[in-house]
């Protein structure tokens, strides 16, 4: 399963790689990292069929996570990949906007990796 993680914080990558080292080792999950919305879109153009889940931060300089969400849902509708929004802001506005734009999940930071792993399992099934 290929998962695209979009976040401007570079340490996110290190974190995910360490948190999912087992999964990565056994190749049950493969991670790709983008550090901006633009980077993510560029990657998706080439690898959309492989990417199952997109995990994106909302607050990013340049294209925000919500913009990215809108773009993805617009461009890749068949089949639409799952897009999960991660954010430190758990306010209604963001939640409603995400929901409206078609986000599949809304998660708050700090990330609960156990929960995340559960969600991945469901998706992979």
């Amino acid at each position: 399963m290929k998962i695209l993680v979009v976040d401007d914080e570079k340490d996110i990558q290190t974190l995910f790689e360490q948190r999912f080292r087992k999964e990565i080792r056994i190749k049950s999950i493969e991670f790709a990292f983008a550090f901006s919305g633009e980077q993510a879109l560029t990657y998706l153009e080439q690898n959309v069929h492989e990417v199952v889940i997109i995990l994106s931060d909302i607050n990013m300089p340049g294209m925000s996570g919500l913009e990215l969400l809108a773009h993805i849902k617009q461009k890749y509708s068949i089949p639409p990949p799952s897009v999960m929004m991660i954010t430190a802001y758990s306010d209604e506005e963001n939640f409603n906007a995400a929901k409206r734009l078609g986000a599949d999940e809304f998660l708050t930071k700090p990330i609960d990796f156990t929960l995340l792993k559960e969600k991945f399992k469901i998706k992979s099934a």
Partner: protein
Amino acid sequence: MKNFYIRILQLVLLLCTIAMATAQHVESDSLKKLLLSTGDPSKRVTVLEGLSYAYVSTSPDTALYYALEGLKLARGNNDLNGEALCINALGNVYFAVGDNVKALEYYFQYLEMKEKSKSRSGLPVAYFNLASVFTEEEDYPNALKYLSKARTEDEKANDQGALLFDLYSFASIYLRMEKADSALYYIRQSHELSRQLKDKNLMGAILNTYGEIYLFLNHTDLALKSFKESIPATEAVKDNEVLASNYYGLAKVYQQKEMPDSSIFYARKALTLAVEAPFLKQVVEISSFLSNEFSVQQQFDSAFHYLQLNSMMKDSLFNVEQVKKVHTLNFQEQQRQQTNEIARIEYRNSIKLLFVIFASAIFLISALVLWRNNIQKHKANRLLQQQKEKIESTLTELKATQAQLIQSEKMASLGELTAGIAHEIQNPLNFVNNFSEVSQELLDEMKDEIEKGNYEEVEAITNDVKQNLEKILFHGKRADGIVKGMLQHSRTSSGVKEPTELHELTDEYLRLAYHGLRAKDKSFNATMKTDFDESIGTINIVPQDIGRVMINLITNAFYAVSEKKKQQSNEYEPTVSVSTIKVDDKVVISVKDNGIGIPPKILDKIFQPFFTTKPTGLGTGLGLSMSYDIVKAHGGELKVETKEGEGSEFIIVLPVQS
């Protein structure tokens, strides 16, 4: 035949007069005797008065003489009583001759004297006399007025005899006024009283008055009865006047009954008596009556005869009447003048009063107006005062509100900050936690690997763990920096403005910034250019705050040029210029660099809190937002001019007086 009749008549008249004089003479003789014998002055006065009274109806001149004598004597002896008595006597004299004006004069004088004296004894007489005059004058209201007063006095004194006269007089007056009911009422009363008192003197007159009243009311039988009853009563007291009146009354009744013979018979009887006296008025009246009767009977000789008599009597009477008339006229004239005078005085008084009222009204009104104006002025003043106070308080409020707004803006931005901070701290803390957690897991794994003896794996894990710890430290510091930045941000508003040498300040902070940057990066090198306006001198600012702004801008500038240096070749000369200049009432500080510039896309975001183009950890993103706030708080502006790839200029505009 005619002449003979007239001659006889004249003779009779003369004889009568003599007879009367003789009769009088007898009475006055005794009085005269008395006068001669008495030496006592007050007694003499009384006698003189008595003499006057005796002659009053027969010889008014004589009566006048005696009255005047008495008066002189009384005044000479300071005999007030005697004086009063004689004055009354004089009134009687004039009343008798028909000079009612003079009569009233003396009677009023007498009244005044009696009123002054404490005793009430003379009052009823005074009132009664006045009433008599007024009756003669046909001034019935006054007559009744004074008669009432007389009656009141007589009632007080319980003088029944006098009351009898009063009541009789009331009846006479009302009869004259043709108020038959009132006349009857009073005549009945007097009749009753007369019977009580067993009076003889007035009974005849009373009965006669009855007759006259009934005659007036056309109760002919009752009138007859009354006149007939009166005759013996009047004969008894030898009151010929009333007796004549009785006969005349009967004549009038028979005339009404259309019994001319009886009418003429009694009329003649009446005339004889009248001529005898003579009662001139009655002669005139009765002769006229007879003349009429004979005319009706077509006995014109007799009619003419009596007419002659009548006219002759009238002549005699005429003079008297004329005199009376003149007097009456005078009297009326005087009354009128008095009334006029009174009216005039009253008029003048009322005018005066009106004037006074008017003047007071004007005064009051003007006082009122003034007072009101005053009140209004005070009101206006008070209003103004109130408004002034209001304005002042509003001003204070506004100032407070302004401060509040600034504060709330701060708070709002702080609020923004809080949200931003939450997010900002969240990330580093996230990493701290996550990396800690991961490290623990790794160490557990390491244990296993050690037991397994996979030392390559163990080394890899060790490196990972070390890296994690570095990241933990890094993110920890990051969080620390963010908090510090936030604290700084919230602290900016508490500064106090003071006059600061701008030149010195700028210089100092420029040096600070440069050395600070060099300390961080030894390879850093840039050209510093300064251009300070010496004329600026001091401006009112919070030196630490503006200093912070300058550091921020300068730091940014240095960062921009150093970034460009990384990209470019050695030919690039990084330059940062700081200049100050005074324009009108403002000071302009400029920080210019030839660095990388600001892309237009992010230009409107650069002043937002937490916005930074620097990589994580290098900048809080609070610098420019804080600078913006500080400059705003000084009443100034923070602007930017930039071109991407070429450089930027940050401009601070500060008012000199703030």
